[in-house]
């Protein structure tokens, strides 16, 4: 039971920043795959439909990713 509780609690405690990073990675992959399939750049709604992730979450994730990349650059310079 302790395990289950911890699992539930950990799950509830996922920070937005972590989950957004995962979303951003998925978005990047979907964008590449869809571009190949369709022979043009996919739109936001097409990416949203293919991943079943809302457009709002994608918009925020893209920004979160830029910031993380930026931080990474600063730290590893």
């Amino acid at each position: 039971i302790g395990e289950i509780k911890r699992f539930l609690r950990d799950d509830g405690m996922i920070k937005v920043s972590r989950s957004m990073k995962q979303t951003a990675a998925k978005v990047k992959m979907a964008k590449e795959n869809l571009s190949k399939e369709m022979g043009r750049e996919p739109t936001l709604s097409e990416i949203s439909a293919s991943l079943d992730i809302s457009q709002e979450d994608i918009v925020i994730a893209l920004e979160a990713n830029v910031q993380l990349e930026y931080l990474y650059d600063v730290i590893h310079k």
Partner: protein
Amino acid sequence: MRLEILSKSQNESFARVVVAAFVAQLDPTLEELADIKTAVSEAVTNSIIHGYLEELGKIVIECGIMGETLEVTIEDFGKGIENIEQAREPLFTSKPELERSGMGFTVMETFMDYVEIDSQIGRGTKIRMSKEIKSSRD
């Protein structure tokens, strides 16, 4: 920050993202963020449906951070609420014909730490809400 939007239904989702992006500064958990977005949706929907009766009007959203607490106000300049006590009651709705649940204020109270309603007939309604982002402590 202060955001002014028109009372169009697509602006409900826009308002949610803006508040979510603002709260992201406090590095909330997914649950905390979902709670805040839900409360904001309820308040904005109320302004659109009840405040402006689906006509075009201005909605003002303000967000601020006090320590680790998010403060949000959502204001309209519409119809106003006749009886605030009654409006707060679970299941009370003035529009049963729209299949509204009457749970909007109950949802806001459940998901936020504090909810204050300020309203004057013919002047409009202002909802102030706040929530401590506990995870920002770690």
